[in-house]
């Protein structure tokens, strides 16, 4: 893929970004702003001085939760909508390959999520500032892995949206996988609750499913525990490898997909 290919991917990505921002992301940010304002105003009164911790917990959980919701529910429509509206066909007639189209969609939604997470992080810092709390930059050590997990979710959702013709089914399968990935520690210790389960199956499941627990640094960061660059580096490598793998399968499936 040359510079022209890259510029075509970026064009699709920019278009996807504009489209997704216009759609639902603004409502999410508005709701987040409201939640943070209410937290900042009320929590000090009703939590016995735990407001700082709770503000951080809520903000980080909201980034994770809302980001996942956007990744899944916007992500499943990225390709299928183009097919339903038949806007994909003229696009395919242009010199844009299917690979470039899919990678552009992936990059566009990932960028939307990056903006979403960054605005939410800014909202968190603003709330901390307005409530007279220190601006703890170490929080970013939890924000970055959240973003990585969202990128991974986008890749998974794109794959399912290509594999399944039904949007609802793709969304359902994506959610199942995301939830299962959050239970990876349970899967790893499954032998304790199901001694009869074959070890190879447990191991296979544990390594095959996306391990979303890897990206959860919220607890450590809120309590001020150190997060090493090594930890973040390995998590980044994990996300990169998994995303590349999933996108590779998605590209292969998309090349074979017939549009009727």
């Amino acid at each position, binding site marked *: 893929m040359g510079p022209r290919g890259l510029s075509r991917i970026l064009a699709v990505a920019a278009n996807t970004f504009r489209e997704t921002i216009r759609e639902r992301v603004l409502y999410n940010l508005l709701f987040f702003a409201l939640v943070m304002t209410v937290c900042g105003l009320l*929590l000090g009164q*009703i*939590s*016995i*001085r*735990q407001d700082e*911790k*709770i503000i951080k*917990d*809520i903000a980080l*959980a909201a980034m*994770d*939760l809302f980001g996942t919701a956007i990744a899944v529910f916007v992500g499943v429509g990225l390709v299928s909508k183009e097919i339903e509206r038949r806007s994909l066909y003229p696009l395919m007639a242009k010199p844009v390959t299917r690979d470039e189209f899919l990678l552009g969609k992936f990059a566009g939604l990932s960028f939307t999520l990056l903006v979403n997470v960054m605005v939410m992080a800014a909202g968190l810092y603003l709330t901390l500032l307005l409530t007279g709390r220190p601006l703890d930059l170490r929080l970013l050590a939890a924000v970055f892995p959240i973003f990585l997990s969202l990128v991974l979710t986008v890749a998974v959702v794109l794959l399912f949206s290509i594999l399944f013709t039904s949007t609802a089914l793709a969304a359902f399968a994506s959610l199942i996988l995301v*939830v299962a990935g*959050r*239970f990876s*520690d*349970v899967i790893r210790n499954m032998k304790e609750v199901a001694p009869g389960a074959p070890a190879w199956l447990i191991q296979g499941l544990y390594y095959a499913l996306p391990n*979303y*627990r890897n990206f*959860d640094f*919220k*607890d450590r960061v*809120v*309590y001020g525990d150190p997060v090493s660059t090594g930890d973040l580096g390995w998590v980044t490598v994990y996300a990169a490898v998994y995303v590349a793998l999933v996108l590779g399968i998605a590209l292969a499936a998309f090349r074979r997909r017939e549009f009727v």
Partner: protein
Amino acid sequence: MRLIPYLALLLLPVLPLVQQRIDGRLGSFRVQHEALYLWSGEHVRRLTPGFENLMADIYWLRTVQYFGGQRAFSTDKRFDLLGPLVNITTALDPRLVIAYRYGATFLAEPWPMGAGKPEEAVALLRRGVAQNPRDWRLRQDLGMFYFFFLSDGAHASEALMEGARVPGAPPFLKALAAQVLVKGGERQSAKMLWQQIYEQSEPGQLKDNAGLHLAQLQSLDAIDALNEAAMEFARRAGRPPASLEELRRSGLTAAPVVDAVGTPFEYNASTGKASLSPRSPIWRRELAKYGP
């Protein structure tokens, strides 16, 4: 027919009137009948992977609201859900130290100020200590709760000594441990311990609670002084003083005749004994253990 929507709007001012009537009948603050659908922190943890801390915050807010609601607004003041709520909170976030400290206070304080379950409070603090071994405050609280609520000087001293060994712990913990062991159950030791809590606590319920206990103990000191003076009066006059006012006028004591919050002491002229008035906001049945 076209006017009906406008006529319906005229009903708007009726709403506050109806609400006022309902509030008048049921009270403006009505305690919600709380229900817990999940009784195990482990179950809640399993249902919310990645969001355990957020759930802990939600359960902590529920705990505070439940306790405050029962204590302030409930007529029968039941604290049945307090223990499970605190347990779920701490299971979800074992490092939420405030939940152990305040939860134990809520649990241990005698009914109706708290749940009156000091054993549960001590068990909670023991779990807190196990989960947060580097937190000397939890060990200090554990020692104090053993001392105040279970009258167990040996365990209190042990917990305080362990607290003193935690890096960063203040040196006075060692002295407290020794005092508690020597004077187990005495009012002086109690005063010393509450004074430490009062001085260390930030403004809030823990400080207020320590202040209340200090006020109680100061009042008991004043009562002791009055009773001693009344005995001296009786020895000299051949009869007990007719009132605390007469005792004051005799010049035998300068002790106050009101408690630390300004409520006059009760006085029995036939026995010559003063006591804390049950009408006083600082009166508690449990104070009997410190005498008189």
